[in-house]
């Protein structure tokens, strides 16, 4: 009578431990970051200045490639590259080597281009190294839903995520109720920080990085 029940309980206990252990170890390995550090890193990427040279207008690995930029153009903000996660230092190095400045998804993931995409930007601001495996679809592995009221109590360094589509970093509220965000924007071709109305974020899910030092 009791044996099947005991087996069931043991299965549940060991099963849940086995399932949660990899996630717990992932969280334990996450780099720790304060909210001030996260926002400072985001602003550093958005304020990173660079000049596009003629060698950065072409992508050696894609004939179809068309640049967003002009030769000699001075730009503020690391350019948008789909699938990219370059740090400012790595980006400067690649630019000097003559890699293309930024690229959109229509050209595929280009190894011959330099830049950063939306999930690369947010995870880098959180302190994760370049080349990690997180996209907007699996950010929940390293970031949970905040328990506080999203509309009034989000904190700088939290994110707004539309799984499979886009993610932005929240940096604060404005007196008029709009919010300040930083994002790697495909339409703007680079990382930018700006204010936005809530309407843009219908169906997005707020996330709080699990490596936050409060």
């Amino acid at each position, binding site marked *: 009578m009791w044996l099947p029940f005991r087996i069931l309980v043991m299965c549940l206990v060991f099963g849940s431990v086995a399932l949660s252990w990899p996630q717990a170890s992932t969280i334990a390995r996450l780099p720790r970051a304060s909210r001030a550090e996260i926002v400072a890193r985001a602003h550093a990427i958005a304020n990173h200045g660079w000049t596009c040279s003629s060698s950065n207008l072409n992508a050696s690995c894609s004939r*179809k490639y*068309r640049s*967003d*930029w002009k030769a000699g*153009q001075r*730009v*503020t903000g690391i350019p948008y590259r*789909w*699938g990219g996660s370059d740090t400012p230092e790595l980006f400067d190095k690649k630019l000097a080597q003559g890699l293309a400045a930024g690229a*959109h*998804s*229509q*050209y595929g993931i280009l190894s011959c281009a330099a830049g950063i*995409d*939306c*999930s690369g930007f947010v995870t880098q601001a959180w302190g994760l190294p370049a080349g990690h495996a997180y*996209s*907007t*679809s699996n950010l929940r592995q390293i970031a949970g839903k905040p*328990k*506080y*009221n*999203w*509309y009034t*109590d989000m904190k700088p360094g939290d994110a*707004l995520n539309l799984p*499979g*589509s*886009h993610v932005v970093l929240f940096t604060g509220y404005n*007196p*008029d*109720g*709009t919010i300040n965000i930083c994002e790697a924007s*495909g*339409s*703007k*071709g*680079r990382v*930018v920080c700006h204010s936005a*109305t*809530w*309407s*843009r*974020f*219908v*169906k*997005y*899910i*707020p996330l709080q990085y699990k490596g936050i030092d409060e």
Partner: protein
Amino acid sequence: MPQLTASIIFVLFALVQGLAAPRSIASPRLGACVVPLSQTVRIPVSPAGASEQADSRDVSISTLLVSKGAVDELPEGPTGFDVLEDGSFVIVDPLRKRICLFNPQGKFRKAWKTGFAADSVTVMKNGLLAVEESGTDMLHVFDRDGVAKPQEAAVLPRYGEARVLSGSSGIVNHISAGGTRTLEINYDRQGSRLLSLQALAEDAEGNIFVAVEGTTAGDSGEEIRLNKSIRRYGSDGTLSREVSDIPLDYYVAPVGELRVRDGKVYQLLTTSSEVKINVWNTNDQCQHDSE
């Protein structure tokens, strides 16, 4: 028999009248008229492909260009527009790096190349167009024929600064020729919290248009949920009209998607198959007006 015929004619006449002139409905909750959608102007789009290349023929293509994006990349396409005096539309076409003009029915009139992708366009008081470049946020100035003008001519209109005071109230410090005056905003939607306020425009009669965002979601919802409305306040600060529950199913993330001209509220909404411009006419008669 003649009575029956007369009755049928009367019913048909009443139906035609009702359909032809949608009237605003007085809302006891708001004390304002809720303005129905008057019209939707539809402009066809073309899907952007990898083979798409900007070239000189772009100025004669009558459709706007939209990319479908990808996993971890948002769709791109027209994000901003404005309305000219005759009801024509000027719309940015960033993927073709051009500015387009359409007539009030959405028929293509002309376009010109800018050499850059633009986010938004604003018709300034001097009649010139201020166009914001996506890659640099720089303002460029053009006349209606696409001739570039000195950048110094760019003066974007400012209608006031808003402040949310609580979940049910806020103020707009409205800037007009007569100086600054404070407009009190009461947000009394049952179970809803005021999120944001934005002063959009002032018309010739001194009416002020304010965009209001609110939410009924608490802190335990699954995702961000909200409603957006545009309110018209009279020059005496009285709320007189409301365009409620503006559609928010944006396919391309908006930048300058709301405009007001001559009492009409316009919204640009780019979908995967067309660019829709929704129009609400706040000048339509309201039951309150005749009481």
